[in-house]
């Protein structure tokens, strides 16, 4: 696996170290519709390279034509997601996550027993499993090994480090035009000295991977009480009403490639997203407090209110978000469909 020098070490679990054979098996499984009941859908049906491993749909549709509830999340730099996966954090590891879509009634609507049976009889897979995991016979092919292989492939979905933003981070100060630089200053709360407001983006989309890997209520829906959210998100998993309406903050790397936006794909463009944040979102009991503070503080307001962003400031932020596009990553031949 090649990671950019300025990226942190990739977390790899001790019981599933990356191997070339494991990654290659995982890549093949990821793109193979053998996992679905009718052999029409693979992981890649909802996670395509050109969409930075999303499907660019508001919500994904499974093999029976039934639409799911939520949008597929980008898998870019997913190896760094160590605080839960999916929008609601219901899986704690890539290995666990990889097990779920196969038996999801809306997604692949299959059984692992059926998948494993097909893998054992397959002309190619038994040898690939043997190479990847050293198993002596086809009897040892299990859903857990299949999930481990898929997880290994997903762990190599790392940025190339060659986006415009990365070139800036690596010391090229002239890579940004004026708007992009303004956008970057607002994004990272650095603009006060040059008269720019805080957009507060980095609190939830921070670090090199531009995701906090945390759960927030970002003001998408009004709710009079914690029990009034249409989609309870994290609260559906934790059972804690205070988590209702919270969702995992996705990476903003390649965000220009992953429209539509939010867990339900409600926003078609980055402009719509910024309009939402500039308006401070809709009210609910657990709305994240950072949403309120987008813009300049309004002197004399009590409690302190914030201006939001001007059209020019939003435009600058959109231009900055486009500097996060990593075309080398999406074109990387090592992560494309091997079939």
């Amino acid at each position: 696996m090649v990671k950019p020098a300025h990226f942190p070490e990739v977390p790899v679990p001790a019981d599933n170290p990356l191997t070339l054979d494991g990654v290659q098996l995982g890549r093949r499984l990821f793109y193979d519709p053998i996992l679905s009941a009718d052999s029409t859908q693979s992981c890649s049906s909802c996670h395509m390279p050109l969409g930075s491993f999303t499907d660019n749909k508001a919500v994904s549709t499974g093999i029976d034509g039934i639409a799911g509830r939520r949008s597929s999340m980008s898998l870019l730099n997913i190896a760094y997601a160590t605080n839960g996966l999916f929008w609601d954090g219901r899986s704690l590891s890539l290995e666990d996550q990889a097990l779920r879509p196969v038996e999801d009634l809306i997604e692949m609507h299959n059984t692992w027993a059926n998948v494993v049976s097909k893998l054992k009889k397959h002309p190619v897979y038994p040898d690939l499993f043997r190479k990847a995991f050293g198993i002596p016979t086809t009897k040892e092919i299990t859903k857990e090994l299949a999930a481990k292989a898929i997880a290994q492939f997903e762990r190599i979905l790392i940025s190339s480090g060659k986006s415009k933003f990365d070139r800036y981070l690596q010391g090229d100060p002239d890579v940004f035009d004026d708007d992009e630089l303004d956008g970057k200053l607002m994004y990272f709360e650095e603009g006060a000295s040059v008269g720019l407001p805080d957009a507060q983006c980095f609190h939830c989309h921070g670090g090199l991977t531009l995701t906090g890997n945390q759960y927030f209520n970002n003001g998408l829906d009004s709710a009079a009480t914690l029990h009034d959210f249409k989609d309870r998100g994290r609260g559906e998993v934790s059972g804690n009403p205070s988590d209702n309406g919270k969702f995992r903050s996705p990476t903003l790397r390649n965000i220009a490639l992953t429209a539509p936006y939010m867990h339900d794909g409600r926003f078609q463009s980055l402009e719509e997203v910024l309009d939402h944040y500039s308006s401070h979102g809709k009210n609910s009991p657990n709305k994240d407090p950072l949403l309120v503070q987008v813009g300049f503080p309004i002197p004399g307001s009590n409690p302190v209110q914030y201006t939001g962003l001007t059209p020019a400031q939003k435009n600058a932020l959109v231009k900055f978000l486009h500097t996060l596009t990593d075309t080398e990553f999406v074109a990387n031949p090592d992560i494309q469909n091997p079939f």
Partner: protein
Amino acid sequence: MKKVLLAALLAGMALWTGCDGTEPPKGATITITFKALYDGQPLEKYKNYDYDTYQVQFSRFNAFMADFALLDGNNAIKFGDIAWVDFTPDLAPSNMAVEVPVVFTNVPDGDYTGIRLGYGVPPALNAKQPKDFSAGHPLSRENEYWLGWGSYIFNKIEGQVDLDKNGSYDGSLIYHCGSNAVYRTYDFNVPLKIEPGANITVEFDLKKLFVLNGAWLDLTDTYNHITSNDANDVVIATQLMDNFGNATTVK
């Protein structure tokens, strides 16, 4: 018989020197348990707390602690570099602030006159970035690093303010302190007996933190509203970090 004795001798040497030939561990394994309070009671997320003439709720409280040292008169014996203390993790089972145990090994046992605690990330470590640390290290946490400022966020306290106590929240409170200028250490003169299994409790009371020189921090004032390390905000960040010692109890 000679073989048995030789094997026993070699086994003993292995225990003494360790597999890599280094000296065996010395001292005790101890635990510091960090707790978050408000007005003496365990902190609870999203609970209404009286604050001056209004009410507040807290939704997030986490901090880096560093430079752990035991005090023996004028001597300070360091036993730990850095720890991450998150009282409000996303995956917590309830709204009650979790207690955070941090285990230290090889702590010299004996009787001490107190303990020194560092609040934030010491300058030498703050000069580094998450990429400089292995996965799992406290300082590998990307979302606790200000990429733009080149500093770790030493602590985060977030919540909401209800000025008229009508149950509807009118504003937010965001206190994120960071930068070398606001790193602090405090000494706590509490007799401590360090022995294997010893447990030290460190409590932070947010009510005490926000009372500065006997007066409540005015959360409604524009420039008391958010902290960072820019020119406008370093004043309040400094005040809070200066007050963290007063908000801390060591038992």
